[in-house]
């Protein structure tokens, strides 16, 4: 990762302003021609460094007001099949396998979004029926204390970049 790439990532973190030529603003802050910035973003999209480039929504405002973390106790040899089935659901945004721990027998995690608790329960029930995994729990959000984008370079390089861009 070059210093210039770190700088682009740091400045892109705040997103694009709603103006006619938003990439020009970013390119000016970074100090590169806009074509070079666009080429870098395209290259990152192509190699998967950028998973997607687009609008990030506040789902509560868009009607998806409830989210539940579904946790599932899936036999290890069926985890992959379960994960692939869960990934197909439009109501499930994230699906991971994580280690079990004492007092917590679940190893598959699904973030479920819905307009109501009933929606989330329906999604989980459908997944349970489709996969045959009956041992699961839904952990509902009781408070959203923080939700933000990652700060990728917060060390010395990041600070240098931020102070130069002011």
């Amino acid at each position, binding site marked *: 990762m070059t210093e210039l790439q770190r700088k682009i*990532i740091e400045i*892109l*973190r*705040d*997103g*694009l302003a*709603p103006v*006619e030529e938003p*990439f020009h603003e970013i390119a000016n802050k970074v100090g590169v021609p806009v074509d070079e910035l*666009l080429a870098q*973003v*395209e290259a990152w999209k192509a*190699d*998967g460094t*950028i*998973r*997607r*480039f*687009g*609008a*990030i*929504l*506040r*789902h509560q*405002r*868009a*009607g*998806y*007001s409830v989210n539940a*973390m579904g946790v599932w106790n899936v036999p290890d040899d069926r985890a*992959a099949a379960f*994960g692939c089935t*869960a*990934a197909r659901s*439009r109501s499930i*945004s994230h699906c991971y*396998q*994580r*280690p079990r*721990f004492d*007092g*917590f027998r679940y190893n598959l*995690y699904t973030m479920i979004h819905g*307009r109501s608790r009933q929606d989330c329960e329906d999604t989980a029930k459908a997944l349970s029926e489709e996969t045959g995994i009956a041992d699961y*729990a839904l952990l509902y*959000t*009781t*408070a*959203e*204390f*923080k*939700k*933000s*984008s*990652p*700060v*990728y*370079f*917060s*060390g010395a390089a990041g600070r240098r970049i931020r102070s130069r861009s002011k």
Partner: protein
Amino acid sequence: MGPPEERARVEALCEPGIPLCRLSLERREAGRLECAVETLDRQLLNIIQTDFPVDARPYEVLGERLGIAASEALAGVRRLMESGVIRKVGPSFDTRKLGHVSVLAAMRVPEAELAEVADVVGSYSQVTHNYGRDHEYNLWFTLVCENQEEVDRVAAEIKARTGIEDMRLLPAERVFKIRVDFEF
């Protein structure tokens, strides 16, 4: 979907304070409810959630795809940002490809201390999401760090500052899906 379910869906969408939802109920006489996010907003959202044009003049590209003027596309996105539906327009990086380490952490906190502990946890820039949940493990947060040493250091600091010992670090062993987009 039958009428009762349709009505429930409409009512759920009609909670006050949801600016995105505009209802058109002209079809009520025909026994059908039509609930829709206003058409242009919906079309814009469906495109720009996953595929915002990486172009010097992106709203011209969007306008062309939707058959509207660039200025209308820009005004639409601006409106969705101002009303708070869109948090931001930008890249979602693959944390691992950037060489970073992310983990989910679960903490068991006495209910009376939850807000205070959550404040300490949220004060770290490495903590991106921090949620209270209705479980014995009642505080769940994600840490994104430059390396494993930083993960361990932040976790140890949080334990020391809050006095809460029961914290589990749960790295993803396998990732099946990371995607947040919805059809409107």
